[in-house]
C-alpha cells in the first residue's frame, strides 16, 4: 500500500514537472526570433505565402493557444490543414515535424532502439569497469594499481568524447580495420552485426564515463572503509572480500546509483556525440539535426522525451534505494 501511494504520488509529481518543462520549453522556443513558418515557406517567400504557411502550421495563433493545442494533441491528436492534403498527427501527438513530414512521436519511437542499444550497453560496461576499478583502487590504495587506475581515469574524465570517438575510429576502424566505423544494424535483423557495430561506441562511451565512476567509487569506498561498522565486521573475523563486497559496497552504491540514474536517463535521451560520430540514427542525432534545421516541434518533442526519461530514471533510482538501504525503503 505504501509502495502504491509512493508510486501514484511520484506519478503526479512527474506529470506536473513535465508540464512545467513543456511550458518553459515551448515559451523559450516561441519567444526566439526564429520563425518556423519562414523556414518552411520556400524561396522566394512572399508575405502571402508566409501567412499561408503560418496558418497551416498553427503558428498564426497566440502562443498560449498554440501551447494548449500542443497539450491537447497529446491527448486527442491533431490535424493540420484541411482537405486531401491535411496532416493528421495521431494521439499521443507530441508535435509534427513539417521538415521531415512525420509526427514527432513516430520519429522518437523509430529512433529509440538505436539510442537504447547504445546507452544500455555502454552503461553496463562503464558500471562494471568504473565500479570495479574504483573498488580495487580503494582497496589497494597507494599502490601502483591505484595510481595507474587514477591516472587512467583522469585522462578519461578530461578527454572530449568527440575526440575519443574520432581517434577510436581512426585506430580501430581505419588503421587496424577491426570494427565497422559507422552505421547501425537492428538487433532483430542481425544480432551479430548489431553487436559488432556497437562495440566501438560502447567502448568509447564506457571509457569516458567509467573514469567518473571509478573516481566516485574510490572516494566513497575509502570513506566507508573507515567507518566503525567496517571495523566491527573485520573484528568479527569476516573475510575481507565479504567486508568489502557485502558491507562496504552496498553503501558505496547509494551515491553511485544516484549518478548512474541521471547519467543513464540523459544518455537514453540521446547519446548526441556518439550517435553523430558513429553515424547512428538515434535520438541524439535526431535532436542535433532538429537544432541544426531549427525544427522547433521536433526540438520540443525530443526535449520533453529526454526530460521524461531523466525523471523516470530518478524515480527508479528512488525505488532501488529501498533495496540498497532499507532505511530509505518506501
Amino acid at each position, binding site marked *: 500500500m505504501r509502495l502504491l501511494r509512493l508510486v501514484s504520488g511520484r506519478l503526479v509529481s512527474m506529470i506536473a514537472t513535465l508540464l512545467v518543462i513543456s511550458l518553459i520549453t515551448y515559451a523559450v522556443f516561441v519567444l526566439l526570433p*526564429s520563425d518556423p513558418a519562414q523556414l518552411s515557406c520556400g524561396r522566394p517567400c*512572399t508575405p*502571402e505565402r508566409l501567412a499561408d504557411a503560418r496558418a497551416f502550421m498553427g503558428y498564426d495563433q497566440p502562443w498560449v493557444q498554440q501551447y494548449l493545442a500542443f497539450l491537447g494533441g497529446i491527448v486527442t491528436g491533431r490535424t*493540420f490543414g484541411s482537405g486531401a*492534403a491535411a496532416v493528421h498527427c495521431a494521439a499521443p501527438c507530441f508535435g509534427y515535424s513539417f521538415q521531415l513530414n512525420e509526427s514527432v512521436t513516430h520519429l522518437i519511437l523509430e529512433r529509440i532502439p538505436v539510442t537504447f542499444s547504445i546507452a544500455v550497453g555502454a552503461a553496463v560496461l562503464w558500471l562494471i569497469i568504473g565500479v570495479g576499478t574504483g573498488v580495487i583502487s580503494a582497496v589497494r590504495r597507494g599502490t601502483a594499481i591505484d595510481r595507474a587506475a587514477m591516472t587512467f581515469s583522469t585522462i578519461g574524465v578530461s578527454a572530449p568524447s568527440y575526440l575519443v570517438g574520432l581517434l577510436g575510429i581512426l585506430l580501430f576502424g581505419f588503421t587496424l580495420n577491426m570494427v565497422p566505423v559507422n552505421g547501425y544494424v537492428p538487433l532483430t535483423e542481425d544480432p551479430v552485426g548489431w553487436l559488432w557495430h556497437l562495440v566501438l561506441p560502447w567502448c568509447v562511451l564506457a571509457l569516458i564515463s567509467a573514469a567518473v565512476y571509478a573516481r566516485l567509487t574510490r572516494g566513497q569506498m575509502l570513506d566507508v572503509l573507515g567507518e566503525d561498522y567496517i571495523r566491527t565486521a573485520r573484528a568479527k573475523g569476516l573475510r575481507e572480500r565479504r567486508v568489502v563486497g557485502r558491507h562496504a559496497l552496498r553503501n558505496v552504491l547509494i551515491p553511485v546509483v544516484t549518478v548512474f540514474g541521471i547519467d543513464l536517463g540523459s544518455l537514453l535521451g540521446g547519446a548526441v556525440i556518439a550517435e553523430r560520430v558513429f553515424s547512428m*540514427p538515434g535520438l541524439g*542525432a535526431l535532436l542535433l539535426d532538429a537544432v*541544426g534545421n*531549427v525544427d522547433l516541434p521536433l526540438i520540443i518533442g525530443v526535449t520533453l522525451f529526454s526530460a521524461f526519461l531523466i525523471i523516470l530514471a530518478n524515480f527508479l533510482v528512488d525505488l532501488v534505494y529501498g533495496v540498497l538501504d532499507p532505511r530509505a525503503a518506501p
Partner: protein
Amino acid sequence: MRQSSKGKALMKRRSALALAVVLALTGCNANPDVTPDAGGSTGGTEKGGTLTILNAASDINFDPAKSQNLAITTLGLVLRRLTTWEVQPGKPAQVVPDLATDTGKTTDGGKTWTFTLKDGLKYADGAAITAADVKYGIERSFAPELSGGLGYHKSLLVGGTEYKGPYSGADLASVETPDAKTIVFHLKTAYGDWPWIASMPAFAPVPKAKDDPKKYSQTPVASGPYQVESYQQGVSVKLSRNPNWDAATDQVRTAGPDNVVFQLGQDTTVQSQRLIADSGDDRSAFGAGFVAPAQLAQIEQNASAKQRLVTSDAGALSYLALNTQRGPLKDVKVRQAIQYAVDKRAYQVASGGAIGGDLASTLITPGVAGRVDYNLYPADPSGDVAKAKQLLGEAGQSGLKLTLLSENDQPNLAKSQAIQQGLQRVGIAVTIKPVDEEAWTAEVSGDKGDYDLTVASWQPDFPSANGNIQPLFASSEIGGGGYNSARYSQPEVDALIEQATAETDPAKAQALWAQADKRILQDAPVVPLTYTKNSFLHGSKVQNFFVPSFPAYPNYLKVSLKQG
C-alpha cells in the same frame, strides 16, 4: 540561395574543430598548399555498380513541391522536369530540354510560353507522362501544406498569388493543357528566363492518382533513370534503375551506376576519413558535402586522396553589404571609400586561402552566361588606404563608427574580423555584432534592418544573371523575407532589372544584366569579396566526377563507376 544549409553549417563547424585537434595531435600541417583536381574530369560512361553518396543530412525530401534541389543533384536522378541544365566543366551552364522537346516557345514577347512533351515518356510504373501531370505537379506546389520548395513561378503565373493548390478543389487556369502533350503558361508579365524556371523541381510531373501528399516525399513516382527502392529516414535511401526510362529521350543523364545509395546522417569528418582510406565500397562513393579547410591539410599528406579531391572553379559570390539606408552609408562617396578600404586578401585568407575562393570584382559570377569581367575599384588585393581616406575626406567623414552584423560561428567571425581590421586602417571603427544564423537571416531579410554592414554569400537558384542580380538588388527584395541586404533602391536599376527580366533574347538579356551589374556597383551598395570555391572528395572507382563554377556542386547526373 545562401551557401550551406543550417545543419550542414553546424556540423561543419563541429567537425572542423574536432579534426583540427586530431591533426594537431598527429602533427599535420594546418595550412596546406593543396593543388586539387581543378573542376574534375569527364570521359566515357561505364555501366554498372552501386554508387554511394555520403550525406550529412538525415533526410532527403523527394517531393518536388517541397524541394529546393538543384537540377543536377539528387532529385534530378529520379524526377525529370520540362527543362534541365547541361553543366560541363569550364563552360557556362545551359538550359536544355528535358521532358519537353525544346526549352519553350513564346509568341508574345515572353508572357505566354508553350512546351510540348517528347514522345514515349513513361513513369517507372509504365504509365504515360502527360501534360496534365506536369500541370498537377505545378498546382500542388501552391498548397500551403506543401510549401518549402523553389517557388519563383508562384508570383509569375497569372492568378498565382491567390491560388492555394489543388486540394481545395480549384485548378490554376493560367496553366493550360490543350492536349496530352502540350502545356501553356500565362504569365503576369514578360519573363525571359521562364525556360530556367521550368527546370525547377515543381515542374516535375506528378500523376494525380498517385499523389499522397503525406508520403510523396519518400515514394515519388519516378520519371528519371532511377526510382526510390527503399527509404529509411536517418539511415539510407536506395535508388534502383527505372525500367521505363528511355535514354534516347534524355540528353543530360548518363545513368551509369545500377544503383545509387545515399547514406544519411554521416559525420563530415568521418566521411572524409572513409574517402581518404578508400577501401571496400567507399571506393565507389563520394561526399555530398564540402571538404572543410581543416580536412584539406590531411588530404595534402596523402597522394591518393589528393588525386581524388575535386575543387570547383570560382563560383558563388561572397560580399560585404553596406546598408544604404543608414546614416553615413547613404553617401555614395563613403560606400566607394569602403570599396578601397576593405582588405580582400585578408578576407580570402580568413576564408581558407586561394582554395577557398578567388578575389571578386563583379556581381555576376563566373559560370553564368553573359558575365563581363571588370573592376570599377581597381586596387591592390589588400586595398588602397590612401584612396579610401581621400574619398572619406571628400565626403566630410572622419571617425566613422559602424556595426557589422555577423553570424556567430568561428569561420564567419574570422571573416568579419578581417573586414573590421581592413576598415580600421582608414579610421572606420567597426563593432561586430555576432548573432546565430537564424537571427542573422531574420535581421537581414526582415523589415527593420538594424545594421550597417554584413557579410553574406549568394549562389543563384538558377544559372542566369537574373538570379545574381534581382534577388539582391531589386528594391522589391528589401525586407519582407527578401535578400537585398544592402537595402539598395535605385529606380534606374529597378527599370533595368525589369527590362532584362522581360527580354526573351538571351544575348540581349545578358547584355542588359551586364549593364545592371556595372550600374549597381557604381553606387557601391556591396563590396564583392570572393567567388567561393567548394571542394569534394570521391573514391577511386568514381568517374566523371566534376564540379563546375555554377553550380559549384558535383553533377550527380553524369557520375559513373569504373568497372572491373
